[in-house]
């Protein structure tokens, strides 16, 4: 409970500092590269496997109901609406949340954050704002690419048994998607990214002294941000339901 309040204060500080000059542009771009681009292989691989496996798992039950032809549509909706954003965000939390938590934690412990402060740099801006922004903006991009790769995996999954042309596959997928499927998923991935970034930074920034503290911050950054991802997902579902975006 206490922690929720602290994270909120931390997030408010983020918004205050993020819009004040000076802007750490080059560090932000470097973080985007590290957080976004470097996560792509992992996200791509998991996404690909998810798409493939999901397709192969769904096929028998669809055959049972005689609607095998709906396979691409079902997989497409499942990936775009839910599995793409959430799985990507969880992998992202595991990779980026822990690395931010550990990095800032060790910087805190070895006084690097203090050193920055002394060197005329606002460490909050330089370390936290850049990372949180990068995570917030890069996760949606990763989700989109993850979706694309997942769908490709699913296409291969469809073709393991039986033959479906790529054209038919994507026509089926997109025919059954609506803006109400894509946009909430896209928008919620910003929140996922923000949550991973801000929690990772919070845990690292207020890491306990010693190497144990660093490990702890990395660990709890992943655990907490994973839980928060599910909570956000729940809230977003409720909101889209209320707004009748389905």
């Amino acid at each position: 409970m206490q922690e929720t309040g602290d994270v909120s204060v931390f997030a408010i500080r983020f918004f205050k500092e993020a819009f004040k000059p000076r802007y750490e542009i080059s560090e932000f771009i470097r973080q985007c590269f590290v957080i976004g681009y470097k996560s792509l292989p992992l996200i791509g691989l998991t996404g690909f496997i998810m798409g493939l496996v999901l397709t192969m798992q769904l096929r028998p039950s669809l055959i049972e109901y005689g609607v095998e032809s709906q396979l691409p549509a079902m997989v497409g909706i499942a990936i775009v609406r839910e599995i793409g954003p959430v799985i990507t965000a969880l992998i992202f939390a595991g990779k980026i949340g822990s690395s931010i938590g550990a990095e800032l934690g060790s910087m805190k412990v070895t006084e690097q954050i203090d050193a920055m402060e002394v060197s005329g740099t606002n460490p909050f801006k330089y370390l936290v704002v850049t990372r949180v922004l990068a995570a917030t903006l890069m996760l949606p991009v990763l989700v989109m690419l993850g979706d694309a790769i997942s769908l490709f995996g699913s296409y291969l999954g469809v073709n393991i048994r039986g033959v479906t042309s790529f054209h038919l596959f994507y026509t089926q997928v997109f025919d059954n998607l609506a803006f109400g499927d894509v946009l909430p998923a896209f928008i919620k991935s910003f929140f996922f990214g923000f949550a991973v970034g801000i929690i990772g930074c919070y845990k690292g920034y207020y890491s306990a002294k010693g190497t144990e503290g660093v490990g702890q911050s990395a660990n709890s950054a992943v655990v907490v941000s994973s839980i928060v991802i599910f909570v956000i997902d729940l809230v977003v579902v409720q909101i889209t339901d209320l707004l009748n975006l389905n």
Partner: protein
Amino acid sequence: MKEQVLIQAEKKKESSGDVLVVKHLYKSFGSNKVLNDFNLTLVNGENLVVLGKSGSGKSVLIKCIIGLLMPDSGVIELFGRNITDLDHEELDKVRAKVGFLFQSNALYDSMTVRQNLEFPLRRHWMHVTQQEVDNLVQEALEDVGLAHTINMMPAELSGGMRKRIALARTLILKPEIILYDEPTTGLDPVTGKEIIELIMTIQKKYRSSSLIISHDMTCVRLAADRIVVLINGRCYAEGAYDELKRSVDPGIKQFFE
């Protein structure tokens, strides 16, 4: 012309007077009173050692001086300006003239030695050319005798080398005051001694003032022009090494045994 005179006058005042004055400093964490009416003066050009046991509040003191911690009350004057009254921008300007050597070196792990040294340069001095930066980095590394490590990562260096790189990073802005937070801690006695000697050499070269925080008597003996003993958050005693060594006060004696 007038400006120059003013600057010279200021320099003169500084060179003759006190660069750092700490008055009635209080700082507590919860119920633990770490600094309790602490007073200290650093005269230009001297090497002052603050001697104290672990946990006596030495590190808190030095972090208050650089503005990393906010004192509960009291005055900290750097070059005649009370840093507790300064806003962030002005504080940064003052900090540019103060070097700080961290106990754990605080080298940025994700950067090379060169980037580590460039970082404070680019941060404090916005308008420097690449050529100037390169020259300054080269000079600072030569001062500590590690010019060949310029493209290495901190993790590749030994403890003593890291301490020297940290020192080089502290020196690169040519500070007027250098604050040393236990410079020999974590080093073997031989390397520790080398570092102290290096500190002395550098001080002579740049004619800066030093405030050294330590409990290592070798360091104290070699470096101190004057010693302040910090016990129970107060300035317990003050004097030169030899004076204090002759003291019969048990509080002081414990350090020299």
